[in-house]
């Protein structure tokens, strides 16, 4: 299959692992930002074909994982209301809130639907004028344009029975939080290719300079990741710290200007809480004032929701690359995809779920 097969080519991949072996002189710690990359690394066993001096840490780029428990509870509260059709991407349904999940809410007879795009939710709104349709707008910069477009169109067509529950987060502020932490071990980043497809990579240039870390915009296929690692190691060994683009088939420096325009029109930057990490200044998006009527958190009164994370769960440390899943006492024991304690075990992109699905608990 074009755009897939050539990036799963054994010879090309081993050519790069050989190159890395030739130039590497010491241990280096890299973080892949995106959960999709984590998934690829663990699924294909890329960490096992790379030289042992390359230490890969798994980053915070899993939208399901970083959505705060409070917002999941808020979603559940809204989904339970009379006359509501609650629409969501599939993988949010299994995420446990503090007392239940959206699948159980659906099973209890509420109208919860899996959609593939916020625009599908908008179609449902048009078909069901007597109902209130809420879309769970979760994700990074990648999903923001489609969500913005849904709200923009709803405003344009005066679709007044549609709203979105926003939990949008942005990558660069999270990277800055990791880099600024005293516990930071990350020496280079594989930046998330799809986020940069939308946003370009201008905003990573000052980060690379300030913290002296190479940042390589990287794709998701095995070849992409191995090549991204090579470019990181090459810079580290040469003492450089620049932003480079491995994912040139998708990413340009300036990004998708049309997509960014619609995001800016509809959303503005705000402080957001990241599950397991805490509040990060200017790290999220919220609807601008003129689109407030589409903000589900204002349309519905959900009261104030205060929740506590399970004490045994170290997903926060995992999301920051401080620990790896097998280092958690609960991993594979009290925590598994059937009964996840934290969101990193729920989403297929979460580091814990990736380790659980592809490796046995005893393996590092």
């Amino acid at each position, binding site marked *: *299959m074009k755009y897939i097969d050539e990036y799963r080519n054994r010879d090309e991949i081993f050519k790069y692992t050989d190159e890395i072996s030739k130039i590497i002189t010491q241990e280096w710690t890299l973080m892949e930002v995106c959960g999709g990359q984590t998934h690829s690394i663990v699924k294909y*066993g890329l960490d096992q074909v790379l030289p042992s001096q390359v230490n890969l840490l798994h980053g915070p780029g899993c*939208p399901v994982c970083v959505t705060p428990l409070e917002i999941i509870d808020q979603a559940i509260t809204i989904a339970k209301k009379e006359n509501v059709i609650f629409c969501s991407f*599939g993988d949010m349904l299994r995420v446990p809130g503090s007392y239940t999940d959206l699948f159980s809410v659906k099973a209890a007879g509420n109208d919860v639907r*899996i959609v593939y795009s916020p625009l599908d939710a908008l179609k449902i709104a048009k078909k069901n004028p007597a109902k209130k349709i809420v879309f769970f707008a979760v994700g990074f910069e990648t999903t923001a344009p489609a969500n913005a477009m849904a709200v923009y169109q709803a405003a344009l067509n005066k679709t007044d029975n549609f709203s979105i529950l926003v939990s949008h987060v942005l990558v660069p502020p999270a990277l800055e939080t990791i880099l600024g932490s005293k516990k930071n071990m990350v020496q280079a980043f594989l930046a998330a290719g*799809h986020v940069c497809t939308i946003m370009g990579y201008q905003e990573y240039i000052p980060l690379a300079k300030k913290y002296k870390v190479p940042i390589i915009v990287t794709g998701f296929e095995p070849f992409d990741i191995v090549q991204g690692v090579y470019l990181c190691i090459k810079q580290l060994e040469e003492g450089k710290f620049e932003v480079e683009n491995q994912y040139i088939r998708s990413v340009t420096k300036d990004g998708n200007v049309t997509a960014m325009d619609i995001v800016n029109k509809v959303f503005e930057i705000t402080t957001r809480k990241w599950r397991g990490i805490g509040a990060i200044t200017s790290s999220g998006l919220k609807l601008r004032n003129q689109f407030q009527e589409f903000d589900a958190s204002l349309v519905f009164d959900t009261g104030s929701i205060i929740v506590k994370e399970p004490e045994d769960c170290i997903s926060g440390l995992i999301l920051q690359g401080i620990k790896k899943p097998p280092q958690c006492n609960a991993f594979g024991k009290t925590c598994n995809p059937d009964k996840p304690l934290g969101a990193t075990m729920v989403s297929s992109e979460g580091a814990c779920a990736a380790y659980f*699905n592809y*490796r046995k608990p005893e393996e590092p």
Partner: protein
Amino acid sequence: MKSNNLTCPIPFNENERITMAHGGGGKAMQKLIDSCIIETFDNQYLNEKNDSSVLPITNNKIAFTTDSFVIKPIFFPGGDIGSLAVIGTVNDLAVSGAEPRYISAAFIIEEGFLINDLFRIVKSMYETARKVGVEIVTGDTKVVEKGHGDGIYINTTGIGEFNITDLPSSKKIQEGDKIIINGDIARHGMAVMAAREGLEFESTIESDCEELSTIIKKLLDEGIRIHCMRDLTRGGLVSGLVEVIQQTNLSCIIEENKIFVKDEVNAACEILGLDPLYVANEGKFVMIIHQDDENKALKILHESNSGKHAVTIGQVAKTNPGNVLIKNFLGVTRYLEMINGEQLPRIC
């Protein structure tokens, strides 16, 4: 006998719908069952119209299985709920080593369902059963109020007979056995998902919905030492293999690059973030056979329609007992676990 001219025999107009009266036990029900169902299935056992059918068997052991079908949409590229209801049960019998003989068909129909659609389904069941050589010998029809069903549900129960004495079983699996699959995977699941969700791809994905009893009979008749078989429906290839190997002290080691997934199916899986190894099939089975019979089995499969693309995907080993392992194109081996619930499309 309507077999050569299968148009709806009942004088219903094409917009006529199922009403509660069709389940009421009276004339309306009798008319529906007689003219739409019994006349279509038409066989000596059913035509007796007794409360139960009396069936002859030649051997002293039967295989007995049941399955319910609630698929949505009821018509999908490559099949429909009717063909699926026959094939599903036939294949369950076939992979036990039995030859399917008789099937029951129970319909739960929602008030308001188009009678024409019911007839399309009944006709499809008849045609599929005829192709396989099984007879639909008993049945039931219930009507539920509008809003209490999803159009139509079908349950089929099947009886098969054994012409072999040495039945396949996970207990017979031994080290070195070859693991063979009869073709490409993941087509049914993706066809249904695409149809259900209105996902449009460049080419339509067709379900692999196909009966397996003919080819399995051939393999058994030719003396292939089949140690164990599974049809790979919900949960896909992985669930089938894990289910089998967990009952043993052995492991399955399969090779990813031997497993064939059609381009359009692979593309759909990639877009939705689904792993084809876990996606449903309805015309695929995996068999674990004596290693010396590999070439002969493949030759038989390759000469058949349902096994044209059959391939050996791996073998049984002693290491890592109870597990299925997959070796990828980089030579890295990982475990394959059964999934928890359904695979869900990812956010991005």
